């Protein structure tokens, strides 16, 4: 897949269809992938990767990238195409300046997921179909891909691309996901239990804003939380009320605009 993507990107750079490629770049370890912009074939060869750890949704970067001259090639996983469309309806970027290639996704995993399984000292990772072998300084460990999927991928709603200029690989179907199972469970609780549940969850929040900044629906020029005139500007949550408040307001702002891309749960 990575090879096909690089080859196609090179072609498009070559024939002048696009000027830049928005993709992923390898990091220090096997799993710390960073979104990156590539401008030449050499850069693509040197740095472009696509593997099970390329979870980042690139659609939000289009806001910034389309402000520049020329056209940008972007690779979109099925869930990313939903955010792509949402950004488009909100006029957040110029469609003319984007060439979108849909790429298949079998669910993503992350370093965090492996670490949650107790893996530490990772020196390398091999993928082979559904099995993942992690090499660590403490010895090798094998996993089934399905056991270390990111939380959002467990409730994947669709493997179908809803926006693209071309596809690499097969398009999938909209899935019958279980994304509201947890909601149903919560709804069955009493208000007291629910409140306790949310307090415990929200007290973990360190108000680092990662969820907001990674969210493709949160693309305001100036967020109300950063605007001293809004009356609710906060940097770090001062108390439990503000922890609640941030999450309530953010949830309200993205209501109806959220595309279930799950970037927030990843962040």
């Amino acid at each position, binding site marked *: 897949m990575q090879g096909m993507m690089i080859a196609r990107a090179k072609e498009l750079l070559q024939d002048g269809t696009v000027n830049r490629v928005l993709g992923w770049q390898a990091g220090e370890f096997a799993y710390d992938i960073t979104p990156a912009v590539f401008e030449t074939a050499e850069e693509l060869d040197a740095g472009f990767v696509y593997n099970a750890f390329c979870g980042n949704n690139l659609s939000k970067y289009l806001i910034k990238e389309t402000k520049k001259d020329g056209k940008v090639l972007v690779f979109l996983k099925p869930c990313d195409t939903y955010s792509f469309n949402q950004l488009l309806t909100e006029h957040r970027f110029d469609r003319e300046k984007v060439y979108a290639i849909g790429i298949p996704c079998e669910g993503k995993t992350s370093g965090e997921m492996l670490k949650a399984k107790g893996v530490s000292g990772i020196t390398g990772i091999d993928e082979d179909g559904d099995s993942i072998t992690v090499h660590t300084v403490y010895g090798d460990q094998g996993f089934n891909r399905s056991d270390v999927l990111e939380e959002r991928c467990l409730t994947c709603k669709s493997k179908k691309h809803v926006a693209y200029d071309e596809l690499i690989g097969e398009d999938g179907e909209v899935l019958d996901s279980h994304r509201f199972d947890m909601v149903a469970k919560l709804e069955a609780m009493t208000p007291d239990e629910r409140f306790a549940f949310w307090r415990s969850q929200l007290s973990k929040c360190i*108000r680092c804003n990662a969820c907001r900044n990674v969210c493709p629906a949160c693309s305001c020029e100036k967020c109300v939380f950063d605007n001293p005139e809004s009356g609710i500007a906060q940097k770090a949550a001062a108390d439990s009320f503000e922890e609640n408040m941030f999450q309530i307001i953010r949830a309200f702002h993205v209501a109806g605009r959220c595309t279930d891309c799950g970037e927030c749960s990843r962040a």
Partner: protein
Amino acid sequence: MLKISLSKIQDLFAAIAADEALYIPADHAGQPEFMRWEAGMQMADALNTVRSAKDFFFPQTENLVTFKMQGQKIDIIDPRSETEDFVVFGVRACDVRSFSILDRVFLVDPVDSYYENRRKHGTIVSMACSKPAETCFCHSFGIDAAEPEGDAVCWKTEDALYIRANTEKGEKLIEKLRPVLEEADDAPVKAQQEQTRAIQEKLPLNSFTTEKFGGDVLLKVFNSDKWASLSEACLGCGTCTFVCPTCQCYDIRDFKTGSGVQRFRCWDSCMYSDFTLMASGNPRTSQKERFRQRFMHKLVYFPANNDGIYGCVGCGRCLSKCPISMNIVKVAKCLEGEL
């Protein structure tokens, strides 16, 4: 060297908590965090907590002063009451070092009395690492994960916890705990230390160093054209600054309570667009500049003003928490090529 069997560790905690607050790393809704010990609370095994231990001395939010209005009268209330004595147990070597870095900021003239007050009342019991992770690079800053600093230091082996005092404060604490501890040979500790150091040799960041940034490189680094591509993916979320044990920027804000004003400070982040916001705007206008500020501060400005000490302890939190996996190691590696 003293020790206590792991099976009796709760007795140790109880002894500490008898007359002061005790915080240990424990499970908080699925994440390791420092929590106030209550009878029965188990110590988490995780290498490091999500948030660093700087919270104890430099909390995320802290009330500075309260103004209360009653009719024409304004009362100014200092919310500080004498902080109770507390013990932070199980701090890793990297976090312990971060305190001395924070001290260089908060305890130099003018002394930050809020920080100082907490620092005075806190005793740090560190915990040596035995299972460092791939994201660890504390040794790059001369930190020995197997021999941490702190008022007292612990080693946890299969069956026992070994403890030794480093400072007067530590002596005092151990004196108090003497009844539950027993004398021990330090051979198992030595063995564990050797083993830990051997593992460190194998870690991917073992050879990572920031020494090239120590010299007169300020303008060279500052003007590097690599910043643009390095910061390209940065979301400006501030996660790195909030989990960082050495980030010390804060913002002072006023909260109108309806009957007055509560002035408080809270962590700020150089990644934010309203960081160091002035009437004229933010001097760092783009994310590239804000991104650069963070790494320049840690790698160049801080050592330049602090006897060559870097503003990083290699705890690796930013490596694992950054949503786009951009971090100080990648930045330093990319830039060092230019030096």
